[in-house]
C-alpha cells in the first residue's frame, strides 16, 4: 500500500513488482504458550481483533487498532506497516531532492518540522511512522526473514547515520516472512497522541512493557514512536510503580531531546506518553 502511494507520488518507479499477496505461507496468526507467530501478510485488522493477541500482547493489538482507518486496516499488512517509508512531507514530495532520495539536504531542518524528530535528528529529521513497530520493539519481537533467517527487532531498524537510503536492516532481496513475539508474561500497553481523533499519524506514540512484582515494574521499557528515525527505546530496568518514580523516569528519558524550531511541544508529549503508558501498566496491577 505504501509502495503504491510512493509510486503515485513519483517517489519510486520500480521496473518490476513482486506480488506477495498470493503466498499463503505468509498469512495467519498462531498463538501458543511460547508466544505469537504472525505472518507478514496478517492484516492490521486481524491483529487488532485477535483475542489472544489482545490478551497476551495488548500493546500490539492496540497499536494495530489505532493505525489509519478501518478501510486501511482491512488491507494493510504488518509486514508493510513496519516497512513504511517516512511520512516526512519533503520525502513525499517529488520536487524535494532530500537526503532520503539521494539528495544532499534535509529540507525539514529549516522547514516545516513540527512533525519531525526530537531525537537522533542531526542528519535527517524523519520519524519512523509505524505504530506496530513501536509495540513490537517493546515486546522484544523477532523478525523472521527469507534470507538471513532471524533479526532481533532491536537490530531491525537503522538510523540515517547507518544508512540514509533505508530504514531497515533487510538486505537487498530479503523478505520479511513472520514476526515472532516471545511470551514472557510481561504486561504491555500502547497509546498515542494525534492531532485529531482518527485518521492521523501519531504525533507521539508509546508502547510500554514490564513484568510486575508487587509495586515494582521489572525490566520496564518504553518505546516511543514518531520521535526519531527509528522506534526509540528507553530501558528503565527496575522501577517503582509510583507516580513520582515514573514521572522522574519520564523526565530523565526526554532530557536528551534535541527539538527543532517547530516541534518543542513533542518533547512534552513524549514525556506525557512515557508517564501515561507506564502508569497504565502500574494500574493494571491493582
Amino acid at each position, binding site marked *: 500500500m505504501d509502495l503504491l502511494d510512493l509510486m503515485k507520488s*513519483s517517489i519510486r518507479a520500480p521496473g518490476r513488482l513482486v506480488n506477495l499477496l498470493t503466498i499463503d505461507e505468509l498469512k495467519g496468526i498462531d498463538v501458543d504458550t511460547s508466544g505469537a507467530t504472525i505472518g507478514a501478510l496478517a492484516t492490521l485488522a486481524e491483529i487488532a481483533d485477535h483475542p489472544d493477541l489482545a490478551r497476551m500482547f495488548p500493546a500490539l493489538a492496540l497499536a494495530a487498532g489505532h493505525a489509519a482507518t478501518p478501510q486501511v486496516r482491512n488491507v494493510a499488512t504488518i509486514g508493510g506497516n513496519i516497512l513504511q517509508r517516512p*511520512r516526512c*512531507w519533503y520525502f*513525499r514530495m*517529488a*520536487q524535494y531532492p532530500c537526503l532520503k532520495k539521494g539528495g544532499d539536504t534535509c529540507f525539514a531542518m529549516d*522547514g*516545516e518540522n*513540527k*512533525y519531525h524528530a526530537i531525537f537522533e535528528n542531526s542528519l535527517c529529521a524523519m520519524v519512523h511512522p509505524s505504530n506496530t513497530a513501536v509495540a513490537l520493539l517493546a515486546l522484544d519481537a523477532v523478525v523472521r526473514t527469507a534470507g538471513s533467517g532471524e533479526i532481533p527487532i532491536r537490530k531491525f531498524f537503522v538510523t540515517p547515520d547507518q544508512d540514509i537510503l533505508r530504514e531497515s536492516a533487510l538486505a537487498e532481496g530479503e523478505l520479511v516472512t513472520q514476526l515472532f513475539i516471545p511470551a514472557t508474561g510481561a504486561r504491555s500497553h500502547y497509546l498515542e*497522541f494525534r*492531532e*485529531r*481523533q*482518527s*485518521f*492521523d*499519524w501519531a*504525533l507521539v506514540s508509546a508502547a510500554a512493557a514490564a513484568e510486575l512484582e508487587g509495586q515494582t515494574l521489572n525490566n520496564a521499557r518504553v518505546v516511543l514512536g514518531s520521535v526519531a528515525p527509528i522506534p526509540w527505546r528507553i530501558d528503565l530496568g527496575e522501577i517503582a510503580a509510583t507516580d513520582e518514580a515514573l514521572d522522574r523516569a519520564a523526565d530523565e528519558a526526554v532530557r536528551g531531546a534535541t527539538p527543532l524550531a*517547530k*516541534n*518543542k*511541544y513533542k518533547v*512534552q*508529549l513524549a*514525556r*506525557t506518553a512515557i*508517564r*501515561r503508558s507506564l502508569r497504565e501498566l502500574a494500574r493494571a496491577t491493582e
Partner: protein
Amino acid sequence: MPDVLTTPAYRWVGHNPPRKESLEKVTGSAKYLDDLKFEGCLHGKTVRSTVPHGRIKKISFEPGVPWDEFTVVTARDIPGKNVVSLIELDQPFLADGLVRHMAEPVVLLAHPDKGMAEKAVKRVHIEYEELPAILTIEESLAGGNIQYGKDNIFKKYHIQKGDPESVWPKADVVIEGEYWTGPQEQLYIEPQGVVAVASPTGGVTVWGSMQCPFYVHKGLKPLFNLPDDRVRVIYTVTGGGFGGKEEYPTLPAGHAALLSWKAGGRPVKIVYDRMEDMWATTKRHPCKTRVKAAFTKDGKLLALKVDATMDGGAYVTLSTVVLSRGTLHAFGPYACDHVVIDTRAVFTNSPPYGAFRGFGAPQTIFPLELHLHRAACELGIEPHELRRRNLLHQGDRMATGQVMQEETGLEGLMWKAMDESKYLEKTKAYREHNRSSTRIKKGVALALFFHGAGFTGSGEVFLDSKAGLELTRDGAVRILSANTEIGQGSFTTHSQIVAEELRIPYEMVEVAVPDTAVVPNSGPTVASRTCMVVGELLRRAASDLKEVLVKSGALAGNGHTPSEFRAAAGKYLQRFGELKVYSKYKPPPDVSWDDKTYTGSAYAAYAWACYVADLEIDMATYQAQMKDFVAVQEVGRVIHPVIAAGQIEGGVAQAIGWALYEDVALKQGVMQNCQLTNYILPTTADTPPIRVFFYENPYQNGPFGAKGLGELPMDGPAPAIAAAVAFALGDRIIPRIPILPETILDAIS
C-alpha cells in the same frame, strides 16, 4: 429534528420533504463531472509556475516524450483576451511573460491517456529570471517592492461614526489587542473539474462542478471573443463548494476550452487531483486586525476602532468584496456612538485568496468578539453581561448609520443559548474545576454576531437577477434559475417555496439544470442569497404564473386540487403553446446604500445568532477537544428545518476546523501541506454534538419570511472557541487561530 420555535401554518414551508436529488445521491447514480464520459475525450493538465515572482525566460519540452501526440497551449494560443473578467481585469488565464505567484498556470497539455498527461507535466521546463517576492502583509505595506498600483493596496474602506479619538482620553478603560486569523482551505470534497468542447464553428460549451455558471459564462466570452449565445455553461452535480467554486472554476473552464479549441473541438476534461487542488486554488483570506475599545467601568462601550488588513494574494479576484463584507461585520451587533473601521486588502505574491463561506465576515467577527471577551475579563464583568449592556436595540444606529427598525431579538437568543448550554452553571463549575485540576482544564464561552444576507449595499441592484418558472408538458412546474445545488439544498427549498405559493404538491415542482442556454441569470449561488433573494423571485414568479392561469380561465381563482392544476396547465399549453413566467429583482422599498460614504443599509436583512462553545484542554498534550456546541439563531422563516440544521452543523464544524485544526503551512506564499494526510480536517470523532435552535421572525421581503443562513454558522464558532480556550487557561487570550497544541504550549510557557 432541530428545534424550531414556530407553528408552521404551511403545507410545504417548514416541513422536511426529501431532497429533490435524494435518490440519485443515495444510489450512487448522481453524475458528478468526473463520472461523465465523453467520446474521444482528452485529459488536460496544467503546468504551473514554481517561483512566486519571475520573468519567464524559456519554456522547453524535454525530449523523449511524444509531444506530437499532445495538444499544447500557451498564452500565445489565446484567440481573445487573456484576462479573467471579474471585478478587475488583472488576472490572466495563462501567465504571459511574468508569473506573480507559485502555482500560476503557464502551459496547458492534453492527451488521450490520462497517465501520459500526468507524466508529461513534469517534462515541461520553465526557466525564470526570479524577481523579489512579497510574501507577507508587512512586506506588502512596507513599500519598496510595489507590484500593484502605487501602494500594493487593492482596496481600502473607511467607516466613521462619531469620533473615537475624542473618547480615548476620557474613558475609564481602553483595551487594545492584535489578532490573526489564518488561511483556510475550502476542501470541497469533489475537486475542481470541467469538460469543454470548443471550436470556432461550434462555439464553447463547458460542463463543470461550480457555483455560478454565469460567472464562467462571463469569463469565457472575452477569452474567445464570442457573443453571449456562442458560449454555454452547464452545471453538473457539484460535490461541495463553500465559495471555492464561486470564482475559481472560470480558470479551469477557460483552460479546458482553450485546449479543446486547439484540438479541433475534441472534448477536454480537466479534473484536479487533490494535491494540485490544494496547492493552486483559492483559500480564505488571512487577516490581521487591531482592535481598540473604550469602556466605562461598568462596561458601556464608548468607542471602537478596528483596523484590519487582509492578504489578497497576487490578483484582485474577489478581494475587494470580501473586504467589504469583512468591513461591514467588523462592528458587531452593538450600539456604540463612536466607531471607526479601517480596512484594506493588499497584494502579495501568493495564489489569490478567494471566496470561502462567510466571505470576510468571520475574519473580522473573530477579533471583535474575542476582544470583548478580553475586555470582560479585564473589567471583571461576565462576558454575556458585557454584551447585554451594549446590544443594538430598536432605534439604535449601526456604524453605517443603518437604523434598527425593530428589535433584533438577540438578547433572547443569548439567554436561550445560555439556557441550552447550561452556560451559567458551567462557568461556575468549570472555574471550580480548573482551580483543582491540573490535568484537564475546561472552558465555556459565547459569541454574538450577525450575518448580512444577500449582496452588500447596492450589489443586488447591480446583479439585476431574473428567475422564472415554466409549465411542463405533463402539467407540472419547472424552476428556471441559475442557482446551483452544491449540498445546501437550494433545489429542495426553492421547490418548497414554489409548491407553497402555487398550492401544488412538492413532487409537482421540478428544477431545470442550471444551463446558461436554458435558465435566466438569477445571480451567483453565494452570499446566503439563494433562498432569500432568488427564493423570493421564484415565489413572485409562482404568484404571477397562477394569475396568468386564472386570467386565462384555465384555473379557478378560489383554490384547486393537484389534478385541477394539471388540467389547467394542460389546457393553457394546448391553447398558447408554452408558459414561462419570469420575475426580476426589486430592492425592498426602505433600503438605500451609498457606496461613496459607506453609509446606509449595508444589508436589507440580517441573521442573528448566539453560539456557545464548550471544550476541554488536556494540559499534558495541550490538545483542545470540543465537548458540546450550542447554536441559536434567528434566520427568518425556516423553509426546511432539517436542511437548515444541516447547514448550521456543517458551518460550525468547518469553523471548528478553522479554529482548532486547519493550519495552512505556507512557503513562498503557497501551501505546503496539500494532502488530506497533513492538512488536518476534523473527523467524525472530533465533531462534538452540535445542537441547533432556530427562532423564527419572518422577514417581510423574503419568501414566506425566509432570510439567508448558509454563511452565518461560519462566523461565531471561532471566537467562542478561542474565548473558551482563554477561559480554560485562566483568562489567557490566544489571539490567533488555528489554536494548535503547540500554540497553547507556547502561550503558557
